[in-house]
């Protein structure tokens, strides 16, 4: 496959705050982004410009207001902005991975199963999925004793490593990374960088927000800068 794995055309996003008298907060406008398989694009722009907003739109977590978000899914172009909830779930299961800045902890589920879950959802046998989860957690220097525990009581860095393992285990063709290394120490940051590079080498299209410029320089092929919209910066001030 060549060309793009992910692209946006004229993507726009404005928040309408009904509880604040219907105030409108325009954030994204006319965003045209295209990411090729094997390429990593780092989102840049000042705080409040809309980097996380764009990322969330790309995952279908925020609804786009205008434009299209195209993904190569099952060999065809799917427009995420027009997809129903079931299709978005399918795209997330098979094509589109996301590592959030913080793990959303599910009560009582052991770390190992949190990592194995997306593999099982894609049809891998439970034993194989757990083995793969175990290998990845070990690679991220998670002591085996922690694998069986739910991450609720883990440190920020430990939770983030569970999150990374969960995001990288399936080998999604498109991967969204929101500050994936923010709470990691140097050794684990290196593992994260290696995982990103391996994903690229395997053909994944990666979009990331990396405040750590060292990490960014080691993984990103180019920057995509989001200019803050005047209205947005005024409201934020």
């Amino acid at each position: 496959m060549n060309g793009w794995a992910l692209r946006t055309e004229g993507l726009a996003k404005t928040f309408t705050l009904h509880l604040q008298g219907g105030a409108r907060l325009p954030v994204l406008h006319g965003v045209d982004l295209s990411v090729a398989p094997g390429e990593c694009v780092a989102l840049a722009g000042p705080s409040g410009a809309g980097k996380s907003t764009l990322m969330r739109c790309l995952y279908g977590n925020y609804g786009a207001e205008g434009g299209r978000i195209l993904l190569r899914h099952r060999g065809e172009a799917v427009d995420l902005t027009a997809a129903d909830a079931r299709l978005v779930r399918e795209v997330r299961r098979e094509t589109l991975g996301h590592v959030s800045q913080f793990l959303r902890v599910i009560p009582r589920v052991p770390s190992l199963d949190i990592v194995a879950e997306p593999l099982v959802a894609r049809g891998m046998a439970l034993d194989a999925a757990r083995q793969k989860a175990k290998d990845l957690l070990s690679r991220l220097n998670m002591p085996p004793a922690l694998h069986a525990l739910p991450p609720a009581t883990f440190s920020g860095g430990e939770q983030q490593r569970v999150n990374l393992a969960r995001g990288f285990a399936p080998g999604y063709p498109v991967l969204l990374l929101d500050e994936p290394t923010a709470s990691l120490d140097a050794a684990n940051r290196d593992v994260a960088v290696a995982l990103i590079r391996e994903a690229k080498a395997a053909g994944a299209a990666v979009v990331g927000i990396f405040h750590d410029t060292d990490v960014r320089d080691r993984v990103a092929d180019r920057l995509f800068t989001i200019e803050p919209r005047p209205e947005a910066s005024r409201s934020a001030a």
Partner: protein
Amino acid sequence: MSDAPILEASGLDLRFGAVPALDGVALGVWPGEVVAILGESGSGKTSLLRVLSGALAADAGEVLYRNAAGALVPVHAAGEAALRRLARTEWGFVHQNPRDGLRLGVSAGGNVGERLMAVGARHYGGIRAAAAEWLRRVEIDPARMDDLPRDFSGGMQQRLQIARTLVTRPRLVFMDEPTGGLDVSVQARLLDLIRALVADLGLAVLLVTHDIAVARLLAHRLVVMRRGRVVEHGLTDRVLDDPQHEYTQLLVSSVLAA
């Protein structure tokens, strides 16, 4: 992804005097999908669930159920006998009050076992073994099999109700505030149990709740109701993180403030 909905409703209207309990509601549920109906008290959630399961007649509209054989059953025209058969075999119900779903004067094992007998199981040892297995799955010590559920805690009663409901492997389960009457700590355990069982068994679930945390944890998709109308619907995390409708924004923000 299965392309035919297991349950599909359209144009549902229902009035109680001047109160519109349902106003033009349409809804589909697909196999393996957990759909939560969210909304404040009196918004019509229970009415909708009861109309969808045929327990209550609507003034207008249609509800179609696709049965295990693939045939479409018009729920409100199927007749009582057919509905009773569905409730025994392909459907399950989890009520907010376990008293509505359990027989408190029958042993815990009996509560689970009689559902199996109702679908034709006859071998006593097999039924008892299956009941013990289900008690274990819902984290009730099988040694308590012969105890009466009226002596159980609220959380245990609710777990027993879930075992009784799921033992026959229904295809579609209706749940109305399944964690409603319980302490927060007991709720968490029950929610986790429901989440795991629903995923394991690949059930389609219609879940009524006014608790956003419950909806976030269990549901793939949300339907937000207000005054009998669906004001917003979509993927759970999209609806909760980027609510579009004024009412949904209010609902989400009052939880953040709590």
